[in-house]
């Protein structure tokens, strides 16, 4: 089965709406630590680059363990800056950014899933995050004026966006001249086998919506970003993939052995990438 863009978006909204309600993590981390009773979202977040202070600093329920890296750690945010988070989910990265930019700064989270936005907004309200705002919107059609953000961050979301060229074009447009892009995402070293790429479950599990690494970087450069640089990358482990409910469902449905799945998923990379919008653009 193949999906067109509208269907893909619908599936993503549905799946993440359910995750918001059940608070169940999906996109797995680089490694797992079996046999403990730590909240899986906390475990995943530690594995992908958040420390205890980050995890403890945000409202309960804001961290669903759905990211694939810590974009804030690389974003070098400054007090007073305006930060735009693409696919803000329950608000975890927005709340972390909010503390850094302070009362003179602002953080805008854009997400298309009402359940996620509701969760994020009530957390912001309950905890008094006055400098964080959420908007329901699409990453390919950002409701953000030209040249307004100092930093655009996004964490494990653009792989889910069908039109990645348009997503990065919009991010570029919304950034001020000299503004920075800081994205954590899933990319591939080589194409996935057909049975994985065509599966809806694999799509919402962040796997089959991912594109080749060089294609992803070419897209970022092609929309105008300069100094595009991969700051960090790591392989997904098969252990974490097999703990991922959607990956598990694909494996069961397609009747592949864990060994075959491991081979098929070996090219999956989690990557942190940075780019800058030129001053003269």
């Amino acid at each position, binding site marked *: 089965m193949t999906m067109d863009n509208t269907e893909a978006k619908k599936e993503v909204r549905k799946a993440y709406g359910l995750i918001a309600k059940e608070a169940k993590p999906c996109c797995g981390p680089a490694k797992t630590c079996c046999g403990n009773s730590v909240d899986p979202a906390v475990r995943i977040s530690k594995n992908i680059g958040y420390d205890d202070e980050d995890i403890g600093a945000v409202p309960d329920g804001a961290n669903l363990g759905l990211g694939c890296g810590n974009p804030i750690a690389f974003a070098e945010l400054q007090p007073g800056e*305006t930060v735009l988070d693409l696919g803000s989910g329950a608000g975890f990265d927005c709340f972390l950014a909010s503390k850094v930019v302070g009362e003179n700064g*602002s953080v*805008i989270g854009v997400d*298309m899933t009402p359940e996620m*936005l*509701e969760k994020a*907004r009530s957390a912001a*309200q309950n905890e008094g995050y006055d400098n964080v*705002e*959420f*908007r*329901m*919107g*699409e990453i390919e*059609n*950002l*409701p*953000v*004026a*030209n040249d*307004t*953000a100092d930093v655009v961050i996004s964490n494990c979301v653009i792989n889910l966006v069908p039109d990645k060229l348009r997503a990065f074009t919009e991010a570029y*447009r919304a950034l001020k001249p000299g503004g920075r892009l800081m994205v954590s995402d899933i990319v591939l070293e080589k194409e996935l086998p057909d049975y994985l790429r065509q599966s809806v479950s694999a799509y919402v599990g962040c796997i089959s919506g991912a594109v080749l690494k060089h294609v992803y970087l070419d897209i970022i450069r092609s929309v105008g970003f300069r100094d595009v640089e991969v700051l960090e990358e790591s392989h997904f482990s098969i252990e974490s993939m097999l703990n991922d409910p959607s990956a598990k469902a694909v494996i069961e449905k397609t009747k592949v052995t864990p060994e075959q799945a491991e081979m098929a998923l070996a090219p999956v990379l989690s990557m942190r990438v940075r780019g800058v919008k030129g001053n003269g653009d």
Partner: protein
Amino acid sequence: MKKDLMNILCCPKCKGKLGLDVTKEENDEVIEGALTCNACDITYPIQDSIPNLLPQTK
């Protein structure tokens, strides 16, 4: 939605400015209301303080 962040909002379709109609507000925060793009003739609702700026056709 805070009124002072209106300046960084735009219509998701034409990227033009939006007009604001407030139905309910608390401390400079718009709780219910609507954002209108005159150029596209489209109104985007604000509910529970979150503007719904998903692209829509008339």
